[in-house]
């Protein structure tokens, strides 16, 4: 063939040309810019507009942050140092750091107690959040609520110990009778727990808290970001079992139980949290026995727990509804009773589907704990709007304080949502 070529064509290249490098506009940064930022006129306009927005934001905030003053004791001193330049007065954060975190009444020599409780919380939460850790650690998780209560509120150690013993007695009774009949075990456990609590309550001597090792702190002295964290953690952990119970109740064939759950859930979801907090602050006291004084913290915990339980119940109901009917029938055909079927077959799958929703509710709930500032509890927002902004030294330091509050909440909430995404990937056992 090459022979004939030589006669018909003037020139034949015998070797292949080495591949030329792509043109500059098709490689590296330039290509990326062309494809992602300037692919057509509209896109270019959008890019320029976005750049303008970013520039405006940075132009206004960067000098403000970089010129920030950290070491003065009042706004007037701050202004003196800045001399009219733009700059933040971050010294409000350093000066009022303890108030922002613990409120203004928590005894300052006891700050180590909530700090320790927070550190221990990380250990207690770890085995729940990460399943690869040894299961033995769950024992500490079970003890943790009582330990944290004792650390934060102080007082005599007898109270949390009796409470813990009551739960332990209930669990023991449940373990013993659980094999034969769920109902007997369940009601027996409740009875045993109450028996221990009542007996233990009589054993605690009057005034035991006065000279206890940890000085008692009344709950109206709790405040700051600590209060937000405590409300968030307590209410989420309490509302999860309640929410599961409500969701199962709503799915139940027993009309009375079903309608009780439906009415509760729809009522709570139909009203804003703030009205429930009003109930806690002004109305709930009327429903307790006349001589008792249930403190505001407990009343708020009750209402917020009810609130988030209703939302969690709806999320879990979605998870239950998403399970194929065959799972229920398979559990029945294996001869499992209701409690076994739920515990071993249905709930593990339904909860797995509901994780993103539950985490959404948890994040929303944690953000909603700021609403307690409206009923004059001094959480982080309450501290900022009340004692700090009203003080003569810091009257007018809005940006630094609100920015700090926003940052704290952002870090926690963003962290939780990242964890939930990790958990979803981790639990994805189906093949895709």
């Amino acid at each position, binding site marked *: 063939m090459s022979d004939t070529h030589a006669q018909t064509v003037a020139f034949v290249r015998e070797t292949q040309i080495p591949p030329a490098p792509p043109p500059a506009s098709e490689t590296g940064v330039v290509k990326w810019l062309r*494809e*992602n930022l300037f692919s057509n006129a509209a896109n270019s306009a959008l890019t320029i507009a976005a750049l303008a927005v970013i520039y405006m934001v940075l132009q206004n905030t960067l000098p403000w942050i970089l010129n920030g003053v950290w070491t003065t004791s009042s706004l007037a001193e701050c202004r003196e140092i800045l001399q009219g330049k733009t700059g933040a007065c971050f010294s409000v954060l350093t000066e009022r750091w303890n108030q922002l975190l613990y409120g203004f009444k928590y005894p300052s020599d006891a700050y180590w107690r909530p700090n320790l409780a927070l550190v221990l919380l990380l250990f207690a939460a770890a085995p729940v959040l990460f399943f690869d850790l040894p299961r033995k650690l769950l024992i500490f998780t079970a003890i943790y609520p009582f330990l944290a209560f004792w650390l934060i509120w102080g007082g005599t150690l007898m109270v949390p110990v009796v409470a813990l013993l009551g739960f332990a007695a209930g669990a023991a009774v449940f373990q013993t009778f659980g094999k034969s009949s769920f109902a007997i075990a369940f009601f027996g456990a409740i009875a045993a727990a109450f028996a221990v609590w009542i007996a233990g309550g009589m054993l605690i001597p009057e005034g035991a808290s006065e000279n206890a090792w940890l000085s008692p702190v009344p709950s109206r002295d709790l405040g700051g970001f600590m209060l937000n964290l405590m409300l968030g953690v307590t209410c989420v952990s309490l509302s999860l079992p309640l929410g599961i119970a409500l969701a199962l109740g709503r799915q139940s064939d027993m009309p009375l*139980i079903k309608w009780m759950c439906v009415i509760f859930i729809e009522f709570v979801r139909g009203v*804003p949290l703030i*009205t429930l907090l009003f109930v806690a602050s002004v109305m709930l*006291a*009327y*429903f307790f026995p*006349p001589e008792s004084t249930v403190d505001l913290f407990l009343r708020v915990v009750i209402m917020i727990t009810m609130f988030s339980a209703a939302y969690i119940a709806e999320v879990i109901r979605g998870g239950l509804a998403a399970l194929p009917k065959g799972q229920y029938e398979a559990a029945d055909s294996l001869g499992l009773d209701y409690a076994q079927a739920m515990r071993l077959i249905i709930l593990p799958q339904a909860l797995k589907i509901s994780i993103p929703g539950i985490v959404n509710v948890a994040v929303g709930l944690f953000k909603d704990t700021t609403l307690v500032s409206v009923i004059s509890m001094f959480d982080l927002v309450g501290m900022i709007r009340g004692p700090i902004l009203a003080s003569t030294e810091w009257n007018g330091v809005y940006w630094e304080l609100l920015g700090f509050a926003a940052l704290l909440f952002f870090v926690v909430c963003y962290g939780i949502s990242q964890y939930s995404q990790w958990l979803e990937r981790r639990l994805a056992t189906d093949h895709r």
Partner: protein
Amino acid sequence: MSTLTDPPNESFRLSMLINDTRYRSLTFQVIAAIVLALCIWYLGNNLIQNLRAAGLNISYAFLGDSAGYDINQRLVEYDSQSSHARAALVGVLNTLLVAFLACITATIFGVIAGVLRLSNNWLVSKLMAVYVEIFRNIPVLIWIIIIFTIMTAVLPGPREFRGDDATSSMLFDAFAFTNRGIYTPLPWFQNGIFESASMNWLLVLAGLGLSWVAAHQINAWANNKQEATGVRPKTLLPVLAAWLVPFLALTMIMGLTWEYPELKGFNFTGGIKVGGPLIALWFALSIYTGAFIAENVRAGIQAVSKGQTEAAAALGLRPRRVMNLVVLPQAMRVIIPPLISQFLNITKNSSLAIAVGYADITATLGGITLNQTGRAIECVLLLMLFYLTASLVISMVMNVYNASVKLKER
């Protein structure tokens, strides 16, 4: 050979109540009913005893008493002599106003951010992701306070508009942005057909309703024509005419004029005053909920499978028609249900108005009225009743709409 016998006719034993599935659910329900009744009796008994101890009773008579406080932002006539019920009505209307406004703007913000987050433009999509994450992860109460602070701290006071060397000036001589609120021109009719201004506005609304019917008819006619001949007649001009001609004619006849806000003394008078708290609340709710709606919109669009877009393109549809005729109608089915719950959230979150002093129902009935009269139980119950009704109505209306767009299956 086997014979079929009747199952042994067991006599009823007490243990069957808990072990026999025929009776067990009945047992549980009876227990639940007893527990419920005991709870109600216990709580009710405590309530009665506490009320008796405090010398109180449950009565709604206080609603007729004179309220004795002023409300700045109001849609109906109200003064400090009006009754508590009237104050509650002002609050209800204010709640509905801010919820309605915020629903509209939040949807707009959300749709724009959601679509832009899917944009090919890397910078824009990242910017939208930052917007969504920042607003979703910070409590709405903090946003409301921050935006209210921006309004009061950054915008000039009315006094800065005064004098020859005023530091601020009105936009187009018609809009004044002050730290007390925004003042806009007020339209009114010089020679209205009716005495009262609201009747005249109702007339204009009726005219617009007629226009809507006419535009609908024109569209239907064009659809029929297209079905029959395959060619769609141009409808832009007739539809525009149907909307504009009656409106313009009505306003011309009644002599529409604008009352401009003017600086008199220490403050602006005339025009419409949109108070600072309303604007802060409105903007904060829309931009916060907009972030959630953006995620719903993004999920909805991503739920439409790529094959649908490709099939539409293969049929020769232009990108815009692919979006309008194929992607959006299917995405709407995924978007609408979460959108409903976002609207409900806006309505419920509007109760945070109390933090910036906007006189919504929570601030009037649940705030000042409650504190003045001390009728905690009655006020909180009325408050809950209102929000429950509002939630039910909104979800009903939206469910009707949802049913009309959802997939019609056999």
